[in-house]
């Protein structure tokens, strides 16, 4: 079942001599439950692509259709709500709010939506993420790995249609990297979570079921692995 469709996406920054064509016509689809890795050299446009998919940066041209909704036809407010309910974003540099504790950071999307926190699911998540005894800590009291796990928790709390991760392990050591990737795979297997992960790390890319390669703002290859059971 198609969950994401990208049609002819373009993104241009600047103008005149300083113009940069970050994306020059990208089109592809993703089905529910897929684990996709997007790879490419620095400046290939992968971060730009992810941001546009995540609804945080508007494209210059083209469409992004998530679960049947053309998200860029939505008004800013509606887009925000959509983001809150249907998307989960994980960044390289954790981007937690420093004055909220772990629980508050994780449940932020729900709190913004003024919805009840499903305590069972939260408990389950915390256990899976190994954060049960860090609930009241502030981000500056956590290690890099722990902060990233909080990020994942926040991305998953809403059971989003799409989980988008931009170099989620770029700032972590090998041990933490392994743990994070396992967690992501777990969510993919356990909750059927659709994952799109940007990475420059070949090892991580090989863990995914599908690898899309970008270069100069274009897709140059789109491989599906026969099986991806790790």
């Amino acid at each position: 079942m198609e969950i994401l469709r990208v049609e002819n996406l373009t993104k241009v920054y600047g103008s005149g001599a300083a113009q940069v064509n970050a994306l020059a016509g990208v089109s592809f689809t993703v089905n529910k439950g897929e684990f996709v890795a997007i790879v490419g050299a620095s400046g290939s446009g992968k971060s730009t692509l992810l941001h546009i998919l995540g609804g945080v940066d508007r494209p210059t041209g083209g469409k992004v259709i998530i679960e049947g909704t053309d998200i860029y036809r939505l008004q800013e407010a509606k887009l925000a709500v959509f983001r809150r309910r249907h998307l989960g974003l994980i960044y390289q540099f954790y981007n937690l709010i420093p004055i909220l504790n772990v629980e508050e950071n994780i449940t932020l999307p729900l709190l913004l939506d003024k919805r009840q926190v499903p305590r069972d699911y939260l408990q389950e998540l915390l256990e899976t993420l190994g954060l049960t005894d860090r609930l009241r800590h502030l981000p500056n009291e956590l290690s890099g790995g722990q902060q990233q796990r909080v990020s994942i928790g926040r991305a998953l709390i809403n059971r989003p249609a799409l989980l988008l991760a931009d170099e989620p392990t770029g700032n972590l050591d090998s041990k933490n990297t392994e743990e994070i990737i396992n967690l992501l795979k777990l969510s993919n297997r356990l909750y059927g979570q659709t994952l799109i992960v940007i990475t420059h790390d070949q090892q991580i890319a090989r863990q995914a079921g599908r690898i899309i390669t970008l270069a100069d703002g274009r897709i140059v290859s789109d491989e599906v692995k026969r099986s991806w059971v790790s």
Partner: protein
Amino acid sequence: MGIIKKLTLRNLQLKRKRTIVTIIGIILSGAMIMGVGSIAASFQDFFLRSAIQSDGNYHASLYDVAVDKVETIAQDQAVAAVMLSRTKGFVPFTAGTEGHKPYLMLRQYDEAAFAHFPLTLLEGRLPANGQELLIPETVQQLGNYQPGDTITLSVGQRYLDGEPLAADRDYQAEEEWRRESIESYTITGIVADPRFGHGLPGYAVFTALDAAALQEAEKVNVSLLSTNVRQIFAQVPALAEKAGVQNYSYNRELLRWSGVSDNRDVTNFLNSITLIIIVLIVVGSVAVIYNAFAISVNDRKKQYGMLASVGATPRQLKGSVFYEALLLGAVGIPLGIAAGLGGIGVTLQVVNRILLGSVLTEELAFRLVISPQAILVTVVFEALTILLSAWLPAKRAAQISPIEAIRLTDELQIKGKDVRTGKLTGKLLGIEGELALKNLKRNRKQYRATVFSLVISIVLFVTFSSFMQYGFVSRDLYYGEIPYNVVVYNFNEEGEVQDSFYRQVLALPEVERAAVVRTLYSRTELASGQLGKFVHKQLLPQGFFPPTPEGLYRLPVEITAVGEEEFAAYLTELGLAAADYTDRQQLKAVLVNKNVMEGKITYQPLQVTAGTVLTLSEQSVEAEQAVSFALQIGAVSDKVPLGVSFADSGLKLIVSEQVMAALSEGLSAASQQELRRASLHLSSQDSSALVEKIKLLQAAAGADFDVHDLTQMQAELKRTTTVMGIFLYGFVALITLIGVTNVFNTISTNVTLRRREFAMLQSVGLTPQGLQKIIRFESLFYGLKALLYGLPLSIFISVWMFNAFSQLFTFTFVLPWREIIICSAAVFLVTFLTMAQASAKFKQQNIVTALGAGFF
């Protein structure tokens, strides 16, 4: 509490210093608005009570109302209280000394009238019935009465040509008094001389009016207090018609201070001024508070971006800013109101202490009036201020895109050309100066907001100081330069009485210098070439001295003699020979060729030389009968003798006693009469002791002279000016403080935000001194820009103010140099200190920590 609200609150707690500074800004602003409101309310209250004390506590009076109509008026729903009064009659009073006041005026007041009319009981008690009498001080002194005395009075009415004269008509030489009855009265009390006594044909004495005993056919004056004073101008004519009378009047002073005036001008003027001041405060405050919110939003950009990426709607982000406004307002507004009331309360106490004894008394002093309207106005305006300030920042917060959260730096929006500085800058100022300048260019909006707030402070400070100067300095000059401090004027006494009295006064040991001043008012005609430049350029175009058909200009001339002693001293001072000026054959005068207008503009009225002969004629009689005479200008001087002040627009000639006597012989009777009257101008170390003694001499002689103690008047004026100064400078200080708050907030935050940047510079080798240099340059640029806009603007407004107030001559405009210098110094000081303080914290910082810090 919603997560957004929780976040906002925590942010405020985190950035404690900024939160407090912003709240201080709100408090200052609220305090000022509250202050203005309180002052207005307290002043109005004071003048209202003052009017009641001097003019009485009633709104209007209806005259000659028939007794049977009184009840109708009293029962009218527009009327809250009535006071009945009338003049029973006149009693010839032989002990009186004033020729135009030969009577006692017997007034009847009912109980309400005694309570509401302005009488101050000094001794004894009020009359309880129609056989008891209240008399004023002067009558007590003249008739040598005491409370308890019983006196018999012949009461009658005044007639002119057989017709009865109205009670308030002044004394007519041809009038006739006819006795009606003889009454016996017991004096029960003494009151201070009533204010309304002047000009009346008799000294008012008071007895009780028994309203019940009045006959139907009789008439009485009805004064009233209205239930709704705002309708008074409609109510009174209606009441008059009901009562069948046409004569009525209003107690205008009281009405005016009750906020009711048929003279729209005064009310409008006061309201406009109050409104203008409040608007000024709001503008100044918005500049500060807006900046505070702008900084807050800017600071939290990443956070807002973060929230947006997780799905916060623009509305929720906006709500965060407004919630911040709500919290800060909820704390700041009540504190501001309290501060304002407290501040004014204290100020009024100080003012009372300064003015007590002169302008104010124990009963009539300023008191703090807490008016609910003023509080409401403050809350409304302050809330408005905060709302306006938060508006734009809130909008900006709503527009923050999630990308903000992802960026490592937030400078991607800078365009190269924005921060371009010329090659010259680099050469002149070094890399530090260049960095400083580029930095200011990068943060243009914030930079402008800070500069704007500084400009407002500068403008207000300089213009208010100018206002003080134009409004009050001139009066200061006027009294300040006069060398005598006691003056005795004679309006009523005959020549011999005056002369003997003056001799006695001059003999007093307290007198150090004295001038016996007599003035002959005359006029002369001059040719165009004899008039000074100033007269041609400024006075003639304004319409002074229109030319005669022959093309000559007629000027008034005051010929003054100052007594032998003083004139001799004058001549000595000028180096002139006495013999020249006492010659009765060759009449000579000294021309004072210096005039002073408005207390501060000096000029030379004439262009003549010694030897010129002036032809003068009397001014006190009609032109056809006026005697002409000639006077030669013996010398031209710019000094005046004791007792003579510089002329405003006419001429002054000083002559000796001998010359004056010679002149006087040929004049008409009217002029000679005029010349008999002299005034004494005395200089003394102890003016109050001198005045005491003069008053004693006066009482002993039973004479009527006007004695003035200028020292006292000068002191009073000084006190009043001080009070004005307190209010104005207090206001200016507060406005300036607001400006300082703003500068502090902006610059301090700006510097703190750039920790990483400074650390980076340090890591490539910038020395602490180099850092200092960058900071100094930035302060310098802030200050210069602010002064560049602020000073010309202030000067412009000062000039405009000068024009508006003086409506005279612009060429004597003086720049408020002192204030400009103070202001400039202050601006630089403030900006520099703020930056230095903010950067002091991290001058010693660990470079690596600072570099690593703040990916968030």
